[in-house]
């Protein structure tokens, strides 16, 4: 007699979890494996890259939206070549055209649809080219490049080590979209630092600038309440017990509790701590011997009238 409970049988159907969770777990696995990918941010958590409440969960502020002549085939191609995964079944119109689909690639989302010329949505094949290139970071650019070409892409520029420390090559996929496939293999030049503050809108900033500031207070809890309410600052726990990092301001700053004397310390970002400290002394100020912290080299200084400030030569990634 068949067992009525056999109706419960449930083979595994793959389900994509929340992309934010998936990205976070990947970072935890990498950390547990002792592999650093350079994707962690200054605050040491993903939260500094979290979008604001006006962005739906799982998306970033900017998302590419590709139009393809055969979106279903394009989806299959991106699944095969880039390891993309559909977040939900494509939304298809009565005419059978895919009106909207979302694919997840690592921590990013790619939107895609069939051509809808009546609303101006046409593909590179119809336009006869594309003015946009998509940059995709993959674990192994050489392998992805080969896979992409084997699956029908045109090789436009072979994978080579670029000055910015990535192996990178360019393909045009079978649907006319251009992709730069990249794998960071060496540290980036310091001039490409994007880990810190939002870039200044001023174009003539060429002096040594403020890199960080720290507010020392007796009671960190009260200061968090005060500045959180006053300025909308967010606080992340740091390596110090009563230390907090404020990631959502430019330049970033921090809060240190348990200090008897309330004080504000400003940290100026310099390229060469020894040279900068020597200049301070030459100009009549004082500078301590530089000390190394995980965030870089630090020297406590006063100017020639006794105002205290710190020099900071950031460690890579800060």
């Amino acid at each position, binding site marked *: *007699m068949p*067992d*009525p*409970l*056999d*109706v*419960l*049988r*449930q083979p*595994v*159907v*793959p*389900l*994509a*979890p*929340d992309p934010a*969770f*998936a990205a976070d*777990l*990947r970072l*935890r*696995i*990498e950390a*547990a*494996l*002792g*592999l650093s*990918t350079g994707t962690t941010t200054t605050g040491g958590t993903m939260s500094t890259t979290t979008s604001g409440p006006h962005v739906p969960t799982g998306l970033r502020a900017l998302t590419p939206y590709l139009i393809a002549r055969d979106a279903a085939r394009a989806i299959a191609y991106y699944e095969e070549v880039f*390891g993309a*995964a559909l977040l939900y079944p494509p939304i298809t119109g009565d005419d059978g055209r895919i009106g909207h689909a979302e694919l997840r690639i*690592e921590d990013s989302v790619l939107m895609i649809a069939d051509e809808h010329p009546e609303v101006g949505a046409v593909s590179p094949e119809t336009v006869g080219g594309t003015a946009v290139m998509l940059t995709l970071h993959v*674990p*192994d650019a050489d*392998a992805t490049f080969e896979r992409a070409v084997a699956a029908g892409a045109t090789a436009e520029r072979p994978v080579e080590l670029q000055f910015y420390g990535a*192996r990178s090559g360019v393909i045009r996929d079978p649907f006319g979209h251009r992709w730069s496939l990249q*794998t*960071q*293999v060496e540290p980036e030049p310091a001039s490409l630092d994007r880990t810190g503050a939002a870039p200044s809108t001023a174009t003539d900033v060429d002096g040594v600038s403020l890199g960080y500031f720290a507010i020392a207070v007796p009671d960190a809890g009260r200061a968090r309440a005060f500045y959180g309410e006053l300025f909308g600052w967010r606080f992340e726990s740091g390596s110090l017990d009563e230390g907090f990092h404020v990631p959502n301001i430019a330049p970033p700053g921090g809060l240190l509790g348990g200090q008897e004397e309330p004080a504000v310390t400003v940290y100026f970002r310099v390229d060469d701590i020894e040279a900068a400290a020597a200049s301070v002394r030459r100009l009549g100020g004082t500078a301590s011997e530089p000390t190394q912290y995980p965030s870089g080299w630090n020297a406590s200084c006063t100017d020639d009238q006794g105002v205290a400030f710190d020099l900071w030569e950031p460690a890579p990634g800060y």
Partner: protein
Amino acid sequence: MLSVTRRKVDRSDDDGAMGERAEAEERGTVLLELYDRALPQVYGYLLPRCGSPPVAEDLCAETFLAAVTAVQRGTVNPVTVAWLVGVARHKLVDHWRRLAREQRKLALVHDQATVSEDPWDAHLDAAVARAVLAELGVHHRAALTLRYLDGLGVAEVADHLGRTLHATEALLVRARSAFRRAYDERTGDA
């Protein structure tokens, strides 16, 4: 990233004693490369069985971090999706154990329920059956999930639950009775 890892491996090879670590790193790379494909499978296994996205996420994380440990100790080779789903099954059983400890009294009440010996010849509605399963006590839910959702043999169920074959057979009989009673109540057949 793969290239970075490979370079690390090469450097480790300079020192013969580091060979084992190089192999562990290689396996770690395999695990990461598998991650995007394996995660939906592991999550897809866990979510319908525990019924709660936050719990499924926690168990997913436990699964992959346990995989990292296994990879580093070299106790698994090769790392496959099927193996990861097996780890997820162990994590699910651990989750039920924790739940059972929290609900020990409830479980005792369930286990003392009378056992129906009549053969049950019925066609069950799958959706109702899953809803009924979700309401059962932890021990019963665990046994029935492994036996019916996963389709494991009684011996394998016993193995996962850390019980003897005999105790597992008895548990399955009680679980089926509890399930049948709840199903009949829900569908008005009682």
